[in-house]
């Protein structure tokens, strides 16, 4: 950062939430030339003409007025539909559990939005993510946010060093309660606003209903790993590995957990008991792997990994197969690994990158994939 803050334009992605409001405030307090941008990515206008984006934009306008920065709105509905929502549907159709937030960061917030910000003369973009950017000797690394409860590097695993060079995460050093406190202290219009939950385009709606309006659901059989018939499912896309709720399996025994899907035969497989061995795996294959600071030189490395958001790190060995494909072997068997979710690698606080879980491995050294996911490899 060679320029003085006053000459450094930072374009902040403002959602109308408390995190991005405080982000803009902190940058303004540091003397940056701050510009707020609201991204409209999804149109959920209901029959009464009410759209949550309009309400959120109102909040952006109020907060930007309070901290005295210019603000605008941009429309990325088309980009979002093409790059994020289409991926989301394709993954569900393939029986997997996608992570639209990861894709949104990759394609929208740190691509379309970043490009737009640069066209506005931005030196940096900033968002309200809980993550840190470390700049040492011309190298930029992404570190976990200091608030271990809120750390969002899991969702940012597809960012590259080139993107991070242009990024600021002012909340990375703060905890969520501290952020709320700052918002309250400055009387920001969004100080008391609830955190948004769930996937942004679904919001508070019923997930099953939402999905069924885009993808046809096909009822099918539920069977145990031994082939025993246990009932019927509403459509494979509604179930995710390790899931217990909504199976509707009665009778003796149980509880039952989803442990796999056969897409071709439209069968949902379940296993009995939380710790059933069928729910555990020894490793995984990940695709679309991104290494934030470039491909590691060694063919394999020991590090830690997260297989889902807000999970403790697990020690693993990563074997690099190609530039974007890895095999990950766990030190200890891991329960309910979910294809479609991200696997993200860490070296201490440094986020190394991550990829999409493609296949689950059940034998430590072998390449034999679990039968229940074999259809996904074709």
């Amino acid at each position, binding site marked *: 950062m060679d320029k003085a803050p006053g000459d450094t334009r930072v374009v902040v992605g403002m959602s109308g939430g408390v995190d991005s409001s405080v982000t803009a405030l902190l940058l303004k307090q540091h003397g940056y030339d701050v*510009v707020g941008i609201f991204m*409209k990515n999804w149109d959920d206008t209901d029959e009464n003409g009410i759209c949550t*984006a309009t309400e959120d934009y109102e909040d952006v306008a109020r907060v930007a007025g309070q901290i005295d920065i210019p603000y605008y*709105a*941009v*429309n990325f*509905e088309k980009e979002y539909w093409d790059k994020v929502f289409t991926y989301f549907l394709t993954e569900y159709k393939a029986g997997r559990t996608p992570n639209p937030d990861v894709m949104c960061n990759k394609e929208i917030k740190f691509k379309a939005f970043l490009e*737009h910000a640069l066209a*506005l003369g931005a030196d940096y973009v900033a968002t309200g993510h809980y993550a840190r950017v470390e700049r040492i000797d011309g190298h930029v690394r992404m570190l976990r946010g200091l608030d271990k409860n809120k750390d969002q590097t899991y969702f940012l695993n597809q960012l590259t060093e080139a993107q991070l060079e242009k990024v600021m995460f002012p909340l990375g050093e703060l905890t969520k309660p501290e952020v709320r406190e700052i918002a309250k202290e400055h009387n920001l219009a969004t100080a008391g606003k609830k955190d948004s939950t769930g996937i942004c385009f679904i919001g508070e709606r019923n997930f099953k209903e939402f999905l069924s309006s885009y993808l046809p659901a096909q009822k099918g059989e539920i069977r145990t790993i031994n082939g025993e018939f246990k009932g019927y499912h509403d459509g494979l896309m509604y179930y995710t590995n390790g899931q217990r709720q909504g199976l509707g399996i009665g009778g003796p025994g149980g509880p039952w957990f989803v442990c796999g899907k056969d897409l071709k035969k439209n069968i949902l497989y379940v296993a009995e008991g939380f710790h059933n061995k069928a729910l555990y795996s020894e490793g995984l294959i990940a695709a679309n792997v991104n290494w934030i600071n470039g491909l590691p030189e060694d063919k394999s490395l020991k590090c830690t990994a997260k297989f889902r958001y807000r999970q403790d790190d697990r020690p693993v060995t990563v074997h690099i197969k190609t530039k974007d494909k890895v095999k990950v072997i766990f030190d200890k068997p891991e329960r309910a690994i979910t294809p479609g979710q991200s696997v993200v690698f860490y070296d201490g606080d440094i986020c190394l990158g991550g990829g999409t879980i493609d296949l689950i491995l059940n034998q430590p050294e072998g390449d034999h994939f679990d039968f229940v996911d074999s259809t996904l490899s074709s």
Partner: protein
Amino acid sequence: MKSIYLDHAATTPIHPDVVSAMVEVYQNAFGNPSSIHQYGRAARKYLDNARETVSRMIGSKPNEIVFTSGGTESDNMAVLGAAFARKDHGKHIITTKIEHHAVLNACRYLESVGFDVTYLDVNQNGMIDLSQLERALRKDTILVTIMYANNEVGTVQPIREIAALLENHQALFHTDAVQAFGMIDLDVCETAIDLLSMTAHKINGPKGVGFLYIREGVQLVSRAHGGEQERKRRAGTQNVPGIVGLEKAVAIASEQFLTKIDKYIGYRKTLCHVLDQHHVKYEINGDPEHYLPHILNLYFPGIQVETLLMNLDLAGVAVSSGSACTAGSVEPSHVLTAMFGKDSDRAYSSIRISFGYGLTEETVEEAGKIIAETVNRLTQS
């Protein structure tokens, strides 16, 4: 940061003489003009004078002027009021595709309650075709509403010819002169206009006040029910200070009419000259002959208008696009779409520059440079 205001077609800065005139009323005549006592009479005097001045400016009689809250109310009063008053004579209304939304949406509402509306096309200059209007006229046409000049591209319609065409037809003729007022020599008597809308804030007057000219004998159905103000045509205590502000603004506009036209034609030339010097690729949207001198709508091929507007704002130059934008949803300009078709990129790559009070040749030149440099930067990257 610089601040150069080139969006005078959106609204204008208030003239200091207008402020003084209004302050005088606020301080000296707070009375209700309908009251019978001296306070009422004092306020009433201001009101009468204003009505007198305004009517003189447009060639009407004072009792043909109804003060309103501005352009939208005037347009609604005219279009809805005329349609409902004459519904027994027919259900057909003619308008254009490039009207302001105050007229367009009033017409859409009328369609929803059983009226039949014809929306005339315009050519690439934004001009209607008189023969299309002639063909569209039916026995049961009760109202023709066509704007005097367009607020986005500045094209001035052949109002005299339209009025002449309607001379022997039962249809009333309304024109929305909100944007044209002060830039065109208006005469409702000579031109045979039945209804004409105007607002003060486009001519350096206050916001929230305007008028509707209603030719003597024309009956409208009132949408507001209340007192008997404005000869029972518009219920509600008059906004006397606002109306006096309007009066002052109209007087100033009339005084400076000719010098303003010359000045703004000069600004247009200056701005285009600066763009040429910087080798900017652009085209003017509008009619090369019949245009409002203060509106300059420019098409920059390859430019994304939202990005351009944001950049210009960050550089201190305030202009606008015709597209309505709420929370990032961009609705392309219905005017440019009507002129160039749905598939044209014009609606996504054009800005409206509009001149007005307080500008100088130098500021226009400076703004031209900023626009040129920004467009060049954005098209090169």
